[in-house]
């Protein structure tokens, strides 16, 4: 399985994997609303009735369907005697509302997990990564140009002889190094040299 995975990685690099991941995420976000609309605790009819004569204003909420969402069905107990009901109900405003608690729950949990993952990754990069990389730093020959230093460090990384010089781990390593350099360059442009986004 492993060689096939590497071939797949070779042919379909990160460029086409990431949109696929995004679309998968999108489907995860979109599918809960599709399923969850039917939950009965997520519909309500809200009737707001203003102060009338000596009755204070009231809000009535009831779990009814859209066709029953009117003053007569929802306002219980009716605070005015039978003759005044019509006048009172004319003042009340009833609205049918729907929501999807599953969507809300899923989205908040997705959001918090992404934030948590990013924080963990940042902690890893700041604390753990320098400790892992430290032994390699001394094996590199000192060189003037920082670009060549990175280039040589990658070239000097031990590759397994024969079969694959680009195993999945190596590719991930390389991609991560490249990404870190990119972020560093961006940081220099924005924060240090103030060339952009000032």
């Amino acid at each position, binding site marked *: 399985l492993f060689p096939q995975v590497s071939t797949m990685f070779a042919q379909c690099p990160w460029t086409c994997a990431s*949109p696929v991941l*995004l679309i998968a995420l999108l489907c995860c976000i979109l599918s809960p609303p599709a399923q969850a609309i039917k939950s009965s605790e997520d519909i309500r009819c809200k009737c707001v009735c203003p102060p009338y004569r000596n009755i204070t204003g009231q*809000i009535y*909420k009831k779990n009814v369907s859209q066709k029953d969402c009117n003053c007569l069905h929802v306002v219980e107990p009716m605070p005015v005697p039978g003759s005044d009901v019509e006048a009172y109900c004319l003042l009340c405003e009833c609205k049918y509302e729907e929501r999807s608690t599953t969507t*809300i729950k899923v989205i908040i949990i997705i959001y918090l997990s992404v934030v948590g993952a990013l924080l963990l990754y940042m902690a890893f990069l700041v604390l753990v990564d320098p400790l892992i990389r430290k032994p390699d730093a001394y094996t590199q020959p000192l060189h003037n140009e920082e670009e060549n230093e990175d280039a040589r460090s990658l070239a000097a990384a031990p590759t397994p002889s024969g079969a694959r010089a680009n195993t999945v781990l190596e590719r991930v390593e390389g991609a991560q190094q490249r990404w870190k350099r990119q972020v560093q360059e*961006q940081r220099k442009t924005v924060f240090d040299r103030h060339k*952009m986004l*000032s």
Partner: protein
Amino acid sequence: MDQKSYRRGSFQSSTSDEDMLEIAGASLDFSMADDDPPLDREMGGFSSYNGGGMNGTSTIMDFLEEPLPGVGTYEDFNTIDWVREKSRDRDRHREITSRSKESTWALIHSVSDAFSGWLLMLLIGLLAGSLAGLIDISAHWMTDLKEGVCLAGFWFNHEHCCWKSNTTFMDRDKCPEWMSWSELILGHGEGAFAYILNYFMYVTWALLFSLLAVLLVKGFAPYACGSGIPEIKTILSGFIIRGYLGKWTLIIKTITLVLAVSSGLSLGKEGPLVHVACCCGNILCHLFTKYRKNEAKRREVLSAAAAAGVSVAFGAPIGGVLFSLEEVSYYFPLKTLWRSFFAALVAAFTLRSINPFGNSRLVLFYVEFHMPWHLLELVPFILLGIFGGLWGAFFIRSNIAWCRRRKTTRLGKYPVLEVFVVTAITAVLAFPNEYTRMSTSELISELFNDCGILDSSKLCEYVNDFNSTKGDDLPDRAAGPGVYTAMWQLALALIMKVFITIFTFGMKVPSGLFIPSMAVGAIAGRLLGVAMEQLAYYHHDWAIFSGWCSQGADCITPGLYAMVGAAACLGGVTRMTVSLVVIMFELTGGLEYIVPLMAAAMTSKWVADAIGREGIYDAHIRLNGYPFLEAKEEFSHKTLAMDVMRPRRNDPPLTVITQDSMTVEDVESIINETTYSGYPVVVSRESQRLVGFVLRRDLIISIENAWKKQDGIVSTSIIYFTDHSPPLPPSSPSMLKLRSILDLSPFTVTDQTPMEIVVDIFRKLGLRQCLVTHNGKLLGIITKKDVLKHIAQLANQDPDSILFN
């Protein structure tokens, strides 16, 4: 000019951000070419580019016919060549159409190619709508998290927590499931200690959110800060900023936007939503070859994505398309109009189905009143327009001054501390006043709301006379004490928002400008509206009111004044015209209010233009020195092309390459010694007759490739750009033909061409450089940077502020 980007070695495949090929180890020191490990160079150099391979030795015929990977791509911080991109797309289309007649598969391919644009728009709309739904729901929840937590499920915000339970008419917010922090910790919500505890928790949460936001931005995607619209405008005009629309920027911008909005800072999310939508567009472009390889087509897609972004921000698809047309895009072909509308509609529909605000509303402050207005009310509307224009000009001046200070002094060295301090000040000042404590969207919603009998907020505490109540249509009433309290609280909120937004916009967190401007305008409008209402109530016998505003009539709608004020302030800052009016009336659903909105928007634009020419986004473009050639302004000076061209009188002569008499060594030394991005090719140095133009990057790639792939190339090999090789004695080394990278149709003007026409040519065709001839002989070159510097010089601005190439 940042030339280093192509020198960085890349041994693995390029990421989606780096569409250009990072030449493995390509550097100006050509002597290094021999001792790099061959395997890595092989892979990094060619096999990774779109999966196509050039493994093994290639024959001379292959070398001549196939374009090299890397030729025709652009470096970072450079301008694209619109003409070349468009002609490449036309060639591609012609080829597909001609091949479609050959086989069924080719026919299907051509149909799918035509259809791919629409599929891409559909995907962009879906993704943008989903992300906007995620942002809305999360921001809503986290904003309420500063005040309390829901016991029925921590993921509910205040409104949803109290959805099921019984609330009273006067206190619609109180329910047993929602506990404020003091109630949770102390057990009760009353008293001074509870208030202080709530205050403390509010400030703590605000600081936590904003610190998290700035750390994430700084750590993962520094390009995610700011609004994004100035940079997107520049990108759409042809500039390349690699990584600005990448996936990390997308993720970080989405996450930190929610954090920044929730922390109570005076910023909005509309501008960053445009950036998010454009990132989605850019990322999804990589699925389709037609858009991945062609920078001009990609910018069409980005225009449509920007429309989708505004559409989900405001729930205004038409307004979004017009915003993209007016503010963001540079070239907007008619085909893009229909596709942008489609993308905007799909995005709005997706957002509606996620239903972030309940009731299938798209925007929190969607209002639906239809009260008529009177012609005499145009006077206060125009007053609001003047206020909007004045505030807009004031805001732009002060914000640019503050940003310039941040850019040049030590203030810019402490971005995290700056965010911390600004958030602390905002939170500490915002909590005591209930109108600043609530989120700005809710404030605008409340201000737009017209008071009816069903409202019980402080702003609607009028003195009710029950005997004269006729149904739902309330007359103008005297203001109760609640209204007076609300008025002075709103005035304080106005002052605070006016000043704090200056320091907030431009910080190193995603920040938008629309909502704070609308808030300022809405507060001012509502204040004026209530004042007018009370004036009409107490003095209904004055001549101006007696005609239309008798006692007991409902003539003045303060909610309308708030809307007009919001439109005026937004127009004053951004100088939007049509798109502003369309967005506002799509927000309200009322065609009756087009005239007041237009009156206010026009007045504010005229007043603001009288004080300062540029809108906020153009001002930021100029501050950052982006090479953006303003398409709307006329060039009105009488200079000629020869005043602007390079070389000037005292400069060394133009660096040219001859068509068949230079060796590889000569060309390499030219490339080493100069930093120009392209060189004209002439017949010979004596005649200086123009053959074409060749780009630096293409030259480097081709020569590199020739060193590796072609046999017999040495330093003294002749490089020729003609069709047939020049006659040489048989003992000379083999020659290098580079005709394929030569642009045979460079644009030329004569030296006496007025600069008006030259600037027009640059704008309309999207050129990067233009050659200047005199009597048919090549004299000099004008680049886009020269044009920008010239315009800046004539406008008495600093020409050295044009930073990029």
